[in-house]
């Protein structure tokens, strides 16, 4: 079954059709690239999928179930995780604590028991910390767990955001321009990390302008322009698609 189905998704901001009848699907284990010129509506798509803004029309389904108007925190519990184009870390927390927030949904207990976190909660916390440290290791931040999050270099902050999203153990991880602002070495590190995630079978939906990264990583690419899907296919085909070339290059008119 399709993991994520986006069906005729539409979002208008006043007169601007930021997302205009977008449909595509993501199969489990797939790496999908979402590309398009600036202002094409990519981030708006992410915001719609994660439930941060309500759509003007259309719907998003996860594993065949429509998410309707479900709040972002319930969507997270259904298995959606994401990062942000402009990094959004919890700046008042340490690096480790940031990752631990990703574990929150599995630590919660209901009712009045929540008022008195006891031995069980401490065990869950210990497990969460173990996972968080593993993830920090994976993204190359093992030594920096106790640093304040905002003391990290830019590239490290991007990787921390990915670790935090991974801590949610998501069905689908959405990355919004993970290579933006990275130098070439950091981009290579990122590429290595994403390849590792692919090998772990994690399903990824990636917005990115770095074509080397997209072409090297993705199984399929969805191209957006002016809020509409203008092409879908494997990277090699997309690269030669005249409409895609025009959207990217034929802009000066």
């Amino acid at each position, binding site marked *: 079954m399709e993991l994520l189905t986006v069906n005729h998704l539409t979002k208008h901001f006043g007169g601007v059709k930021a997302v205009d009848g977008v449909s595509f699907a993501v199969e489990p284990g797939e790496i999908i690239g979402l590309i398009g010129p600036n202002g094409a509506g990519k981030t708006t798509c992410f915001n719609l999928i994660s439930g941060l803004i309500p759509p003007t029309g259309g719907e998003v389904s996860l594993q065949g179930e429509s998410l309707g108007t479900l709040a972002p925190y319930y969507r997270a519990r259904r298995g959606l995780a994401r990062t942000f184009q402009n990094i959004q870390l919890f700046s008042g*927390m340490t690096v480790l604590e940031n990752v631990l*927030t*990703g574990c*929150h949904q599995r630590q919660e207990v209901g009712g009045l028991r929540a008022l008195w976190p006891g031995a069980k909660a401490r065990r869950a916390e210990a497990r969460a910390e173990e996972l968080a440290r593993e993830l920090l290791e994976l993204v190359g931040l093992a030594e920096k767990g106790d640093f304040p999050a905002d003391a990290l270099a830019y590239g490290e902050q991007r990787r921390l955001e990915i670790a935090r999203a991974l801590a949610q153990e998501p069905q689908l991880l959405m990355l919004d321009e993970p290579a933006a602002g990275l130098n070439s070495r950091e981009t290579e590190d990122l590429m290595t990390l994403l390849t590792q995630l692919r090998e772990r079978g994690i399903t990824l939906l990636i917005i990115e302008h770095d074509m080397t990264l997209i072409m090297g990583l993705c199984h399929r690419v969805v191209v957006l322009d002016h809020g509409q899907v203008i092409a879908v296919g494997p990277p090699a085909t997309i690269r030669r698609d005249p409409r895609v070339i025009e959207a990217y290059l034929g802009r000066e008119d």
Partner: protein
Amino acid sequence: MSAYLLHLAILGGIYVILAISLNLIIGYAGQVSLGHAAFFGIGAYVSALTSLHLNFPFPLAALSAILFSGGCGFLLGLPTLRLKEDYLAIVTLGFGVIVDLVFLNLEITGGPDGLAGIAPPRILGVSFRAPGMYLLLVLLAVILTLILTYRLVNSYHGRALRAIRDHEVTAQVMGINTPAYKVAIFTLAAALAGMAGSLYAHYITFINPESFGLHTSILALCMVVLGGMGSIAGAVVGALALTVLPEMLRQFKAYQDLIYGGLLVALLIWRPEGLLGKGKLSLKFISRE
């Protein structure tokens, strides 16, 4: 201990509970609250009224105060979910003023005269009327509050609250049910403030609206800011300091406001995070970013 010191210690303990409860809202969850004294007052009046009119023994009166005040916190918490910070400031401020007016104008609350003759506590036949005994009772409540809040803020709850304070939308994306947390923390803080109010009423044995107005809300806010946002130890230090300091400054009565103002300004310049705090007072609702 001299009677006077005992008196200060009892009041200090009560304010410690009040300051800790307010710190949960503003220091941990990062929400504005300018009417916290209302819950202190609701607790005091409910406890006094149930013991005066319904002959509730102290434990039952205190429990009523906690539950009723917590219920009011829940009800105030619900609409505030949809409010941005600046409106939250206005709504909580308005709530404080309205509750104060209710105390002042209802017949059952005794209007401006308030309520007198509130019975000192008696639990299982033991009287806590003597100041030494009362201090014991207050200490017990303080310790209970400390244990409860320490456990909460040092668990995943504390992290969730700080996530909400740092970045609410991102907290939601992490799977944190931010509306539930905000309402829960308003409820809990109000319940604890209600307990403080109950302890206050049965100690002073006479209450009137004056003790629960805007200046008490501001005093509680100052305790939190002085001690440190997002630090329970800070709230303790802040509450004790602002209970004792006015007494020490008594002989300089004329200059008291001047000294306070000076201290607050000095604090904001040299240690804006308070004596023991980590986060700074969020003034986002004044200076929009």
